[in-house]
């Protein structure tokens, strides 16, 4: 394979394309830049969850809780709610740290649990966090409960306000475009961390735990510490993603952090290929753009065929998700872009 020779030009091309993408998109409408931003946000989340599910093999069905924690940390520290207006580079790390703390809080008592029990417990944990956020308006008003927190500060760097349009050297940069670049930067950092982790000592330890926890412990791996580290790291990515979400939206309420969102992120990781960074990115991008694609296709097609809309695109999307989860498990259990190790072991498993 002449991988090395083509790698760098490829990377460079992708980089240029990504840098120019928002201009191309804003030609079709700034809305598309927003859609791209949410897609990147989901990639961030999926990569964070990938650490827990893909690397360490711990199925987490309550991942959105960490996203929620990050979002609320941002909202509480930069909104009129408590009159605090900290800058985003202070809040994002705090959000990541608090989310990591929650990750450890979830991880510590559940260390001994088996895969499927763990899944259910994490699901319960996610719901508990949401219910608390929804109810902490009484007796003391912390989260404003279901009313949500409005007026959250956008990201500001110096005089540059990310919620407004600016022109730089004659180029008009709309708010969503600025967020795009910021998100891209975060994405780059997280992709690099993921890639480095994959081949590091820690990554190999996680892999060992995933394959056989008893054997891993016998080999001298600190399984407790490693599992907690996975939870904490995964959660902190979720926290950063949540902070960005709060800043971009300017308003958050618990209804953005429901169970379906967790399932969605899990689907991204599973469909793309657990444990494989390009696979997870592909999965996240696919699932974030599917609703948009469906909206543009399903309606006209049905209108043409039946003269009215029989099945809403949203329903078709959910049906596709559900079916995809089943079919991928049946026919491509390692995902669309499987990691080499996973592929080997899963095909081996099935043969036995």
């Amino acid at each position, binding site marked *: 394979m002449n991988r090395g020779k083509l790698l760098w030009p490829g990377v460079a091309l992708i980089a240029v394309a990504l840098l120019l993408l928002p201009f191309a998109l804003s030609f079709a409408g700034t809305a598309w830049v927003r859609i791209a931003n949410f897609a990147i946000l989901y990639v961030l989340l999926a990569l964070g969850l990938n650490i827990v599910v893909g690397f360490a093999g711990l199925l987490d069905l309550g991942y959105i809780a960490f996203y929620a924690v990050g979002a609320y940390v941002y909202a509480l520290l930069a909104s009129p709610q408590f009159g605090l207006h900290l800058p985003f580079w202070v809040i994002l790390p705090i959000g990541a740290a608090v989310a990591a703390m929650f990750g450890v809080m979830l991880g510590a008592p559940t260390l001994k649990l088996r*895969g499927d029990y763990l899944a259910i417990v994490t699901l319960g944990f996610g719901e508990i966090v949401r219910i608390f956020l929804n109810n902490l308006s009484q007796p003391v008003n912390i989260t404003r409960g279901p009313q949500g927190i409005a007026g959250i500060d956008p990201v500001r760097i110096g005089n540059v306000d990310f919620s407004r349009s600016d022109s730089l050297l004659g180029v008009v940069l709309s708010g969503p475009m600025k967020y795009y670049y910021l998100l891209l930067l975060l994405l780059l950092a997280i992709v690099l961390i993921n890639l480095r982790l994959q081949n590091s000592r820690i990554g190999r330890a996680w892999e060992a735990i995933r394959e056989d926890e008893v054997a891993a412990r016998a080999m001298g791996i600190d399984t407790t510490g490693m599992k907690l580290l996975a939870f904490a790291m995964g959660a902190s990515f979720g926290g950063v993603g949540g902070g960005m979400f709060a800043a971009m939206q300017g308003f958050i309420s618990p209804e953005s952090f429901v169970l379906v969102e967790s399932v969605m992120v899990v689907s991204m990781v599973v469909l793309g290929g657990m444990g494989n960074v390009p696979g997870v990115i592909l999965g996240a991008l696919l699932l974030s753009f599917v609703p948009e694609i469906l909206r543009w296709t399903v309606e006209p097609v049905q209108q043409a065929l039946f003269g009215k809309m029989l099945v809403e695109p949203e329903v078709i999307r959910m049906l596709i998700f559900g*079916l995809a989860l*089943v079919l991928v*498990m049946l026919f491509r259990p390692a995902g669309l872009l499987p990691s080499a190790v996973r592929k080997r072991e899963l095909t081996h498993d099935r043969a036995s």
Partner: protein
Amino acid sequence: MDIFVQQLINGLTLGAVYAVVALGYTMVYGIIQLINFAHGELVMIGAMVAFTVINLLAAAGMPPLAVVLIGTACAVPVCMLVGYLMERLAYRPLRQAPRLAPLISAIGVSIVLQHLAMLVWSRNVLAFPQIIPLTTYTFAGAIVTGVQLTILGLCFSMMAGLALLVYRTRLGTAMRATAQNPQVARLMGVDVNRVIAATFVIGAALGAVAGVMFGTYYGVAQYTMGSVLGLKAFAAAVLGGIGNVPGAMVGGLVLGVVEALGAGYIGDISDLCRYGPLAGALGERCADGGHFVLFGSNYQDVFAFVVLILVLVFRPSGLLGERVGDRA
């Protein structure tokens, strides 16, 4: 005191519904260690089918009892069929796969069933026709309705029937053998695939009955009703000791009572204004009959999850379960 008895009755009825749903979880888990995530959807489909039938027949003016019985008789085979297909198509091919595969597949099945049901029965909350006349009895100052008594009775008889099936019939013996060791069971002449399919179908039938119970008791059904109900029933099954038939029953009833008493009393207990020195510290919040309630009925849905987590962490075998080995 009569309020306390009333809360117990509320809790027991709710718990009986949980228990019947939990039976389905426990049977499937007991035999192939799969959390059938989509079991809640079977309950929902049962309620929906019954709704359609009951709605049609009630309009025709048949006697209420016959209407409900026919409704159940229609819901049960539909759910059995769905349960069978589910096992055959989404779980059986994955029996040798890593543990997470069937679980993820089950989540997929659950999403698909929910949205198919939505296409058939719409998103709206369906109101069951109110055909059963309200009969009430007074018991120790509390009010019990005829429907509540029926649900409790049905729940116990179903558990007893299931226990008989598992411990007294050939099929039951085959089930227990398969649960212990499928390979050896196969060597002994047990058709493992058939036994597992039978387990799913029986679980689905129980789910259907639970759905009808739920629908007639509360008078409403919606395509989303299965998920929360399913989760709570799963918590009940774990609480009782998953894989254990009487355990599911006990777990369901206990969870129901915990929820009812929790919602009924935790608000008063956690009202800091009731505690002298604290009330002083809170000053005007407590003045003039004010309240400072830390946790109220708003945390009702948390109880099930907290119970689930506590049981799994401290006593994974549940209240009645034997110690399960580390089978992962």
